[in-house]
């Protein structure tokens, strides 16, 4: 009885404690407050350390007598590996801010608060920060066993304007040693800041057969010379490829693979040499590769004639296995890889041109389809009478027509990868020698005026170069290039870079 009494008493007391809770429900049936703004553009573009961002928007509130206060803030458009940091750049309605940020895309926020009601509304736009060096066509060229970079700025659209010749050596007081091979661009290459943190750096990688450089695009200054890419300064400097794959960044020096595993914090240093297997057998990776930013890449070991991959979290590489229906073993296939490039990003697919090591007269075009740890390879022969048999330069048409472009002698041909039909596309004018070809495109979703899809043909003559930018029409080059980049030296690669570019989505970085 006593127990029941206590239970009842506690229930009564509990109810009493909450019985007088004040109802704070919102019974205001006035229209919601609304702050409107005019004069805020969808986006702005400014040169860092030179231009001011000046915005004076018209702001009004639906609440009569509103007392508005303003907060301008910005943060770096999110890139893998770094948490964006918000910075305040103004507290007045009129923004007048000297842009001093890194060249890349920033998110600009204006928050307007009615002090009377506490109501706040945030408006968003984008700020594209550039510098003198962060946008344009970059030409990697060689001259007398030294290399340098020319920059053709593109102030209005994809067509070139002012040329800054030898921009790398002008800023860094040195040329790259050796003959140029490859340009790559990433906006997520890491660097250790003075306070020990990891920062993203817009980085242009320029490689030659004896040297290389990671260049901070904002200033064009060298972030790391090639030897300093690595934990251990290499005794021999012979760069091969450098690319980003699904697990991080991959670089080859003297045939050996080094990587940066992107799922850990890093500071841009490539790790220890990755072994071919747990016996550390000798290997030497070919300069050609397949990658699509998501999957394991496809590489080729010239020593064992094997397609290999690496996840960068293991000390070892792995040989690809054979998928059902393959017509050539992925490993130890006795082939020499003459070329490999990417035909399609999704599904991940590429093509290779291969030559039998035992009988050099046997050459094939091989389609390469990676599925997890296996490859499906489908070959078709290249007959000795066909132009492709003696090709010296190749590029795949990526993500569009099923075509391989190649150079035999001084003529550029296309070859239908299904039909095997070869067509002459371009013949270098008398006296000019073709030094490279490459298919590159940029979807430029934020800057339609900069969208392009070109087959680039570089030639040299008498110490001067021309790079013709050809559009395609139904797989064939149009007769006249859109424009020609011209300068001194022999061109070996050309890349287009813009601060608003998202390399993992909008450009191709395979051959």
């Amino acid at each position: 009885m006593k127990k029941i009494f206590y239970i009842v008493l506690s229930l009564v007391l509990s109810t009493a404690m909450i019985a007088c809770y004040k109802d704070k429900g919102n019974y205001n049936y006035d229209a919601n407050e609304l702050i409107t703004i005019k004069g805020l553009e969808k986006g702005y573009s400014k040169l860092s350390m030179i231009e001011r961002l000046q915005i004076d928007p018209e702001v009004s509130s639906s609440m009569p007598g509103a007392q508005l206060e303003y907060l301008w803030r910005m943060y770096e458009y999110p890139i893998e590996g770094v948490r964006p940091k918000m910075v305040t750049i103004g507290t007045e309605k009129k923004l007048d801010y000297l842009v001093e940020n890194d060249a890349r895309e920033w998110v600009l926020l204006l928050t307007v608060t009615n002090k009377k009601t506490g109501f706040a509304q945030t408006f968003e736009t984008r700020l594209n920060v550039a510098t003198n060096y962060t946008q344009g066509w970059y030409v990697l060229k060689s001259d007398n066993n030294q290399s340098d970079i020319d920059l053709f700025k593109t102030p209005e659209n994809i067509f070139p304007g002012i040329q800054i010749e030898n921009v790398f050596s002008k800023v860094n007081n040195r040329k790259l040693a050796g003959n140029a091979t490859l340009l790559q661009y990433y906006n997520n290459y890491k660097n250790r800041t003075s306070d020990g943190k990891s920062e993203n750096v817009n980085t242009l990688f320029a490689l030659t057969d004896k040297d290389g450089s990671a260049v901070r695009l904002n200033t064009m200054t060298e972030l790391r010379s090639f030897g300093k890419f690595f934990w251990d300064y290499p005794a021999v400097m012979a760069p091969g490829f450098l690319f980003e794959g699904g697990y991080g960044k991959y670089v080859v020096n003297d045939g050996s693979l080094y990587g940066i595993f992107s799922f850990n914090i890093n500071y841009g240093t490539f790790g220890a040499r990755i072994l071919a297997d747990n016996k550390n057998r000798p290997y030497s990776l070919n300069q050609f590769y397949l990658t699509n930013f998501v999957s394991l890449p496809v590489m080729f070991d010239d020593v064992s004639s094997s397609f290999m991959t690496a996840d960068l979290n293991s000390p070892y590489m792995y040989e690809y296995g054979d998928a059902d229906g393959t017509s050539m073993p992925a490993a130890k296939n006795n082939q020499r890889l003459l070329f490999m490039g990417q035909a399609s990003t999704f599904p991940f697919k590429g093509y290779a041109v291969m030559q039998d090591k035992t009988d050099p007269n046997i050459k094939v075009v091989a389609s390469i389809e990676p599925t997890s740890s296996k490859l499906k390879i489908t070959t078709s022969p290249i007959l000795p009478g066909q132009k492709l048999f003696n090709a010296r330069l190749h590029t795949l048409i990526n993500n569009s027509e099923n075509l391989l472009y190649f150079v035999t002698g001084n003529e550029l041909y296309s070859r239908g990868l299904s039909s095997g039909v070869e067509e002459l596309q371009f013949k270098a004018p008398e006296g000019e020698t073709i030094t490279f070809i490459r298919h590159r495109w940029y979807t430029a979703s934020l800057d339609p005026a900069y969208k392009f899809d070109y087959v680039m043909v570089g030639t040299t003559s008498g110490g001067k170069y021309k790079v013709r930018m050809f559009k395609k029409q139904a797989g064939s080059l149009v007769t006249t290039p859109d424009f020609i980049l011209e300068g001194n030296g022999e061109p070996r690669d050309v890349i287009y870079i813009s601060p608003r570019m998202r390399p993992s989505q909008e450009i191709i970085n395979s051959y």
Partner: protein
Amino acid sequence: MRLLNIVLLTMLTGLMTSCKKDAYQLYNEAALLQFGPDTSLLYNPGYNFIDSSQTYTFVSKKAEIIQDTAWFNIYAIGGVSDRDRPFVLRQVMIDGVENAVAGKHYKAFSDPSIAGSYVIKAGKMHAFVPVVTLRDPELRKKQMTLKLEVASNESFKPGEQLNTWRKLYISDKVARPAAWDSYMEVAVVGKYSEEKHRFMILVTGQKWDQEFFTALKIDFPAQGYYKSKLSAELIDYNNAHPGQPLRDENNQLVEFL
């Protein structure tokens, strides 16, 4: 009256100590000899005793290295001479420690192969003092201490008392740092053994001591690098020693992750 007594006592105490002779040596007799820091630090009083003791370990040296040299700096006080001036060092035994044994853990200073090294050259006031360490197997288990001091001879007398001696700790011994903990075992270097520890030090040139492991624990790129580096070095070692892969002190195969 009591206050007077206190004042008197204080004055007497002061008088008793006021005539104590200065311990510093003067230069007006024979030249003096004493140890000091590196020449670059000589005029910085904060570094006067930086070199009082050194540790020499053979751990980071290949097995073929059976002797090596530790160096001290010594200075003649009282001006230069126009002739070479030999000097004499001797070992001082210390109670309660394992004293190094001449001919076993270090080469005696009188050994003909090095005796000529203990000289202040004409026109010089400074010399490097070599102490040749010997890799005795006992050093894998024990750290030995060598205390050496300046002895008088016809050229020099010992200088300032605090700088007439140096200590050298000689070792070939590894010890598991506390920071080689379960995380390091699972994520980076695997289980501990003395032979593995020794191998890691040898092939990387790093100390792999408490300080190194503590820094490594928060440096993921470095962890990845050393994980791969150590695996590769072990494979290379085992390839170079067919049928005799690296084993630890318990005869277990040394393995990395």
